[in-house]
């Protein structure tokens, strides 16, 4: 049986990297006594798939991982068992059963929503909402993406599905998070800062991933994003 687990990661836990979070959950699942499926061989490992990796320093209330279990009583029991063995800063939010044919968490990811807020006070940008609108109104938002292997010109605008400001003055955005077109929220923010001619150091604001989405639209149609937890 395939199970999807949604969890939040915040506070001091934002300093724990992706691979260490996987190790953390592997051990947590053993502590919780969940009847998870293992691979064969001399050093068996748990069948487990994480959705989109979360960068160190970012908080989230929309993280996902899929596991395969051999038996269980109820999804509620799994949720409770896991929450009993968590640490401060990690909380299991929901556990759902996936349809057999569902793609795994990692392959499903299409988009993610983020919230960016100054750690102290508000963004020092006057008329923030108008500026964000104007920024998103640009024809294109060119960005030079440098990786170890290559330097490519991309148009960020293609991957920004929504961007705005909430009532607390935080910047909200929904961006591409698929393996092929992932956009970092900090990169979008950097471009916004350039647009308004400001420099805001990365560590002065907190990024929170709010939700991770999959796209259920048919090929060629407009995106239809639903949270990973709503699959099935």
């Amino acid at each position: 049986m395939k199970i999807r687990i949604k969890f939040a990661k915040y506070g001091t836990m934002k300093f724990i990297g992706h691979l260490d979070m996987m190790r953390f959950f592997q051990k947590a699942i053993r502590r919780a006594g969940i009847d998870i499926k293992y691979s064969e061989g001399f050093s068996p490992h748990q069948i487990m798939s994480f959705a989109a990796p979360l960068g160190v320093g970012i908080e989230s209330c929309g993280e996902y991982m899929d596991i395969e279990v051999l038996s269980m009583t109820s999804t509620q029991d799994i949720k409770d068992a896991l929450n009993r063995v968590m640490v401060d800063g990690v909380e299991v939010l929901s556990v759902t059963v996936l349809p057999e044919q569902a793609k795994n968490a990692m392959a499903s990811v299409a988009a993610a929503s983020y919230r960016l807020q100054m750690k102290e006070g508000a963004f020092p940008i006057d008329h923030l909402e108008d500026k964000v609108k104007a920024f998103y109104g640009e024809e294109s938002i060119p960005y030079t993406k440098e990786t170890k292997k290559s330097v490519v010109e991309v148009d960020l605008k293609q991957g920004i599905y929504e961007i705005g400001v909430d009532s607390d003055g935080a910047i909200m955005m929904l961006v591409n998070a698929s393996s092929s077109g992932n956009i970092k929220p900090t990169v979008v923010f950097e471009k916004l800062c350039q647009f308004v001619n400001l420099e805001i150091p990365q560590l002065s604001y907190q990024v929170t991933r709010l939700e991770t989405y999959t796209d259920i639209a048919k090929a060629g149609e407009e995106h239809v994003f639903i949270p990973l937890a709503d699959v099935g």
Partner: protein
Amino acid sequence: MRKLALNDDILMQVEKPARYIGNEVNSVIKDKTQVAVRFAMCFPDVYEIGMSHLGIQIIYSMLNEWEDVWCERVYSPWVDLDKIMREKHIPLFGLESQEPVKDMDFLGITIQYEMCYTNILQVLDLAQIPLLAAERGEGMPIVIGGGPCTYNPEPIADFFDLFYIGEGETQYRKLFDWYIENRAKGGTREDFLRGAAKIPGIYVPQFYEELYNEDGTVKGRRKQYDDIPDTILKEIVMDVTDAHYPLKPVVPFIKVTQDRVVLEIQRGCIRGCRFCQAGQLYRPVRERNVDKLKSYAVQMLKNTGHEEISLSSLSSSDYSHLDELLDFLIEDCSQKHTNISLPSLRIDAFSLDVMSKVQDVKKSSLTFAPEAGSQRLRDVINKGLTEEVILKGAALAFEGGWTRVKLYFMLGLPTETEEDIKGIGDLSNKIAATFFDTVPKDKRVNGKVQIVTSTSFFIPKPFTPFQWATMCTKEEFLEKAYQTKQGIMEQLNQKSIKYNWHEADVSVLEGVFARGDRKISQVILEAYKRGCIFDAWSEYFHNDVWMQCFEDCGVDIGFYTTRERPDDERFPWDFIDCGVTKEFLLREWKKAQDETVSSNCKVQCQGCGANRFGGGICYENR
């Protein structure tokens, strides 16, 4: 949520911020207003090393079981954070409360190897505690040293308020009760230390002065008060089965060296290898009850979620219920998808059978530690492993499908000759030849055999029969490594043998610290002031700085390493009594020179003196 001692900017800047945030599974948070004693337990090396140490987990768990005590963990900040903390004057903090160590009652430092001595100073300095015990005022934590290196505490005596000699389980309650009582009476730091000096196992170095002869050797000791002991007898737990054991060890977020459940099956070793310090310090052997161990294994795996378990002891093959324990673990672990990491066992049919059950034979390797290349020298060091046994074990293993062998030797052992060194290559070659003889061509799994021969340099340690031995110079060590290499290159099967050797610089320094006296502390202090920390990490070890410090302090390295010591020399550590008598050690030193072996404790008692503790192997039916 706890407020961290380091802000986001710093944590995002340093490598592996998880080293500094605490919050791990099974870490203990208490209300500081509800405890009487706050204890910072430190391993003076980086988190990943310190977190792998069983002793700290035992003490941490034991102290936190007491309602009125809160024990936290402290490790050496890595060099990146070290720099930032100095620049910004951030005081070193406990991982649990994230509060400064200097505000706690005790700072306990476990000292497992000599090369961490400058890291002790780093920890004190970052904690903003004066480096010298004499300069610490009221209100500063009491700095305690413990662990194997404290059996010769003199080289670091100036930095500690007190040393706890021996096993940690026994005297902490008494020490804390006295601390609380003294504080309630309005007693001073000095009052506390005076009282502490009378608690068994506790040594307060500032109350003693080391006196020297004209030639620099120790003449005697003068104590400041009549009512404090002349010798300090090590503390020991006789009933290890009922001693405290950490059933809920802290589980790190990041990968650490020992990332698994550790079961300590016994303390001590029956063997009596003459170079080995642990083998003498932890006498007599005391075994843990096997049923207790089984139940610990189950509980600890459940409480940690670790996917691996390993056994810890100096010589696991000697544990009397090893087969029963391993059978249980193999059975239980395979159900739970848990790996068993085996300690190095004596290679025989039994251990090979066990190994084939828990590891992939094709990928794993066999380990032999003959320590010396010839039978003559193995007799000198009392390593009861013969060539015949090694070759027989190897043949068995090759038949079972193994193709990799690791061999460990020491260079620079007392009485060593060129012949003995040549023996290292010869033995490596014979093992390779055994492979070709036992495994027919069409059955050679990886096609060939791989032998990795490693040598380390012998360092004489206190409380061993070799404490009288001279140590080689760096040049002699390197020459011996060169000879070993040549000896291997001359072998018929040299293509199957890979040779590794250690740096010689660190060994020389370790030799000085191991048998040093109080005069050494000024050199350590000076080296620290000139920037030496993390000496155990080759990339941060600055031999030239150290050499300059010895010269500038006027301390002669040869006095501690290469000098011949007469039988009746008084050693700096003689005032510590580890149970084994100096007469026994001297007897063994003479037997070594006669190339005579001594039986192990199970075969025949050698009268080492450790029977005075009234238990363990000395009294069990053999």
